[in-house]
């Protein structure tokens, strides 16, 4: 141990490999975990007891649109049918989405236009900050009313109260009747940069009857699986084929978390390779140390040190280097994550305890593994040859 202390610079440089290795494992995993947790939050924040219906994934070679079928993909009618016919379903919010330009008194802005129904606010757990959401009457009456998101409100109206003002959406006039409460961003996506209009108006404006997705809200947590089954049955009967996907919020979350877990593991693994490189650095320096301290080893053997005593001494040193490097690496990992938070505030990192434990234990194992060869070399030295070493 004294050898390590007396050679601070060299020990520090040797540790650097381990420090960088452990630090990058922790930092990279914190990025993965950060993405995972913020998207998980987003999925959970969609609303409660949700079932998501999306078009696609029909039988092989049977894509609905290519077949030119009368009822292709998902429609507003599908949503109404589910809402009407399923006992387990509380309400359904279909969504037709498209990019659009919003204009007010010369100010224009590109935004996301969503045609939906009065259920949206309830299903998606999205309350209003001001005004009101449109009603069934607005939808049936094809009324040109709009509810805008917080970002649109701030960009177009500034401090002005938007409620009651007239805006243009793709050159079509609308009256603003409400402003949504701020949701905050998910990673780089601004959830408040949106405008909602009645679904019937959207169908007309965008000349489509296909909805991009449907949020189905079950009557309670225990009704979710029934809601899934009934939704499948009702839409399946209407389409006569399986050209849509029904997924529980829980499934989406699990699938997504699974994918992110794999990705995060890969990131950690790649960073782990640098730890192995750090281990080679330890082995290198330990071999130098053993050579430099040949006489010391000879003296120890001359007074009765056994092979295992010498072996243990040098193994302890390499494990000590990797342990200290590991601890500094943990600090470096925290620092790296903090730095990333500064540089990319939209990408919040989450440091997971398992990554710290795994990186540290791996560092110890690396120190042990790469310390074995130099320690054995030291232990096998012949006492008299070691004593004669110049």
């Amino acid at each position, binding site marked *: 141990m*004294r*050898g390590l202390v*007396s050679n601070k610079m060299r020990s520090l440089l040797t540790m650097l490999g381990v420090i960088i290795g452990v630090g990058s494992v922790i930092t990279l995993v914190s990025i993965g975990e950060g993405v995972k947790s913020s998207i998980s939050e987003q999925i959970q924040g969609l609303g409660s007891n949700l079932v998501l219906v999306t078009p696609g994934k029909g039988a092989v070679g049977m894509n609905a649109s290519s077949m030119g079928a009368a009822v292709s993909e998902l429609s507003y009618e599908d949503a109404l049918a589910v809402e009407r016919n399923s006992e387990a379903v509380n309400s359904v919010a279909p969504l037709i989405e498209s990019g659009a330009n919003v204009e007010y008194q010369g100010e224009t802005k590109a935004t996301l236009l969503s045609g939906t129904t009065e259920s949206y606010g309830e299903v998606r757990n999205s309350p209003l900050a001001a005004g009101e959401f449109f009603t069934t009457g607005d939808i049936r009456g094809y009324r040109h009313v709009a509810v805008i998101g917080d970002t649109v409100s701030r960009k177009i109206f500034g401090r002005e109260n938007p409620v009651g003002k007239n805006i243009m959406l793709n050159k079509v006039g609308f009256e603003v009747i409400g402003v949504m409460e701020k949701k905050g961003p998910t990673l780089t996506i601004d959830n408040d940069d949106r405008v909602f209009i009645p679904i019937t108006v959207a169908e007309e404006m965008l000349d489509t009857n296909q909805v991009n997705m449907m949020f189905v809200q079950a009557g309670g947590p225990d009704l979710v699986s029934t809601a899934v089954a009934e939704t499948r049955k009702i839409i399946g009967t209407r389409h006569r084929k399986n050209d849509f996907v029904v997924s529980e919020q829980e499934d989406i979350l699990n699938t997504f978390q699974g994918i992110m877990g794999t990705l995060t593991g890969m990131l950690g693994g790649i960073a782990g390779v640098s730890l192995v490189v750090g281990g080679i650095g330890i082995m290198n320096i330990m071999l130098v140390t053993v050579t430099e301290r040949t*006489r*010391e080893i*000879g*003296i*120890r*053997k*001359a*007074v*009765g*040190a*056994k*092979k295992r*005593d010498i072996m243990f001494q040098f193994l302890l040193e390499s494990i000590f280097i990797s342990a200290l490097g590991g601890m500094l690496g943990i600090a470096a990992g925290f620092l790296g994550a903090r730095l990333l938070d500064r540089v990319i505030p939209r990408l919040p990192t989450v440091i997971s305890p398992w990554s710290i434990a795994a990186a540290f234990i791996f560092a110890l194992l690396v120190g042990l593994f790469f310390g074995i060869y130099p320690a054995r070399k030291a232990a096998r030295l012949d*006492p*008299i040859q070691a*004593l004669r070493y110049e």
Partner: protein
Amino acid sequence: MIIHISNMYKFYGLKNNRVSALKHISLDIASGEMLSIMGPSGSGKSTLMNILGCLDRPTSGVYEFKGRDISNLNDNELAVLRNQYIGFVFQNFNLLSRSTALANVELPMVYAGIAAGKRHNIARELLDVVGLKDRMNHYPNELSGGQKQRVAIARALVNHPAVLLADEPTGNLDTRSGTEVIKLFDTLNSIGVTVVVVTHDSDVAVQTRRIVYIRDGEIVSDVSGSSIKKDQKILPYEIRPGVLGFDKPHEWNGRDGF
């Protein structure tokens, strides 16, 4: 006989470079003896001492230590032998430069598995005996040659060896320090420690009861005199069995595989 050597050879190198460092060596040393080995430089004295100290192995021949043929012992058993039964004092001290005098003296006890507290006490006591009470926490480079050699002797004694081997222990010392070291050996011998000293100094040699001359790797003479002199007291107190807690008998007692 504590040491029995017969027809022992030691070669260095291979084939063309082969050096016969020791040839046809036969030597018996009784327990409690004190003898000196003399001979010109390169005659094989260190080679013989290293083999006696179990630091090296002979090429051929028999070496029995306390009746046990050391060629049958493995590395671990030799380590125990060096640790428990043999004290070795080198011409160049061979102290650990990064350890204090105290830590150097403790070293053999570390490998003997003696607890730290007891180690400290024994090491302090022995450093006191060799007159280095006030130098315990000094590093070797802060000590004079004579002081370093006394640290080395204290280290050689901590595990209460049966045999003390010293290869030119006074070679790097001034006359006065050398005399003190030899007096120390003499005292140790008087309490039963077998002492073998390699020396160039015939004044030192005549103080021992037996002188072995080596030339070109062969023993050319082995004389025992009766020039027995009185013990001179140079130590703060006399080392007697038991005084340092050294009361173990010099017997093979089966510890650590023996």
